[in-house]
C-alpha cells in the first residue's frame, strides 16, 4: 500500500538506449519501491534504430503496463516536444525529468521527494555545482567552460539556483505544464529557460546535490558551435526575462 496519495511520473526520452534502459528501469523501480512511493515510468522513444523500443516492451512485460508506459514517436524530435508529449500521458501529480543514459542516478530520487515534501517546493533541481554535487568524466577544459558559463549566467540572470543547465529535476505537474507552455528555446537553453521562469512566476525551488557521470563527453566534445548557441540563448533570456 503506498504511503501517500502522491504519484510520480518519470519522463524518460530515449534514443539508442537499448544497453542502458534495463538498468535504469531496474534502478528506478528499486528506489521508488524501497520507499513505497507510487510511480510510473513513461518511455518516450524517438524511433531508435538499435531496438530500444523492443527492450522497453520486454521490460513492460516484466514490470507491468501500469508501471512502464510506452509513448514512442516516429523519429528524433526535440527534448522539449518529448516532455510536452510525455506530460500529456502522465497520470502522476509530480513529474521527474532525467536523462536515460545513466548520467543521472535514480538513487537520488528519494532525496528529491523528501526535500519537496519538507518545504512543499514547486520545483526541486539537481545540482552538480553545490553541496556534495559533482561530475565524473570532465577534463580541466570542460570544467573551466562549465564554471565560466554558469558564472556568467548567474551574473546576468540571478536565477536563484546554482545549476541552470542541469536536467535532473522534480516538478509539480501543473507547474511543469505552465513552464513548458511559456518556454520558447530549444536544447539545453530550454532547461535554462525553464529554471529562469521559475523565478519569474514566483515558484519555489529547492536543490539536491547530485553526481553526474558523463558517459557521452568522450564522444561529443563541447564545440564552438555549442558555446555560441549557449551565449545567444543566455543573451535572449537576459533581454526577455
Amino acid at each position, binding site marked *: 500500500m503506498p504511503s501517500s496519495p502522491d504519484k510520480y511520473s518519470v519522463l524518460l526520452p530515449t534514443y539508442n538506449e537499448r544497453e542502458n534502459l534495463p538498468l535504469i528501469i531496474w534502478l528506478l523501480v528499486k528506489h521508488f519501491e524501497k520507499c513505497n512511493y507510487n510511480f510510473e515510468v513513461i518511455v518516450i522513444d524517438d524511433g531508435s534504430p538499435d531496438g530500444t523500443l523492443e527492450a522497453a516492451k520486454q521490460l513492460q512485460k516484466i514490470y507491468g503496463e501500469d508501471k512502464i508506459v510506452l509513448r514512442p514517436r516516429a523519429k528524433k524530435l526535440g527534448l522539449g516536444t518529448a516532455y510536452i508529449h510525455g506530460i500529456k500521458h502522465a497520470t502522476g501529480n509530480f513529474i521527474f525529468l532525467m536523462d536515460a543514459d545513466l548520467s543521472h542516478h535514480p538513487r537520488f530520487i528519494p532525496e528529491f521527494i523528501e526535500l519537496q515534501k519538507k518545504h512543499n517546493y514547486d520545483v526541486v533541481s539537481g545540482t552538480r555545482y553545490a553541496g556534495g554535487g559533482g561530475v565524473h568524466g570532465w577534463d580541466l577544459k570542460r570544467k573551466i567552460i562549465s564554471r565560466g558559463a554558469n558564472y556568467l549566467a548567474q551574473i546576468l540572470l540571478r536565477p536563484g539556483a546554482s545549476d541552470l543547465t542541469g536536467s535532473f529535476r522534480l516538478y509539480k505537474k501543473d507547474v511543469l505544464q505552465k513552464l513548458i507552455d511559456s518556454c520558447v528555446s530549444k536544447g539545453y537553453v530550454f532547461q535554462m529557460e525553464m529554471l529562469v521562469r521559475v523565478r519569474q512566476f514566483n515558484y519555489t525551488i529547492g536543490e539536491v546535490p547530485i*553526481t553526474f557521470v558523463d558517459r557521452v563527453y568522450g564522444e561529443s566534445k563541447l564545440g564552438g558551435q555549442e558555446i555560441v548557441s549557449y551565449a545567444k540563448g543566455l543573451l535572449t533570456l537576459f*533581454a526577455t526575462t
Partner: protein
Amino acid sequence: MHCFSSGCQMATKLVQWLTLFTLFSSVWLSLVLKLIPVELDPRIMDVLWPLPIYLLVVFGSYSLATIGYRVATFNDCDEAAESLKQCFNKSYWSPLFSIRRTIQS
C-alpha cells in the same frame, strides 16, 4: 516595474542593468565634469575619475578568482562512476534474473 492595466510586470534583467548603468553614469559624469556646483576635495576627485576602471578591474579579478576557485573545488565523482560500472557487472538486474522473478510471482 512596468504597470499595465492588466497588472504589474517585473522589468527584464537587461532593463534593470541599463537603469543601474544610466544612474551610475549620470551621477559620475555630473560630478566629474563639474556639472553640479558641488565643492569636492581634490583627493576625492582623484579617486572619482578612474573609479569605473577600478570597479571593472575589481570585478574582473573577483570573477577570475571565483571561477578559478570553483574549478579547483569541482567534485570529481569517481566513486559514483565506479559503482555504476559495478552495477553493470552484477547479474542480478539482468533480464535472466527478471524472467526468473516473473516465474516466481
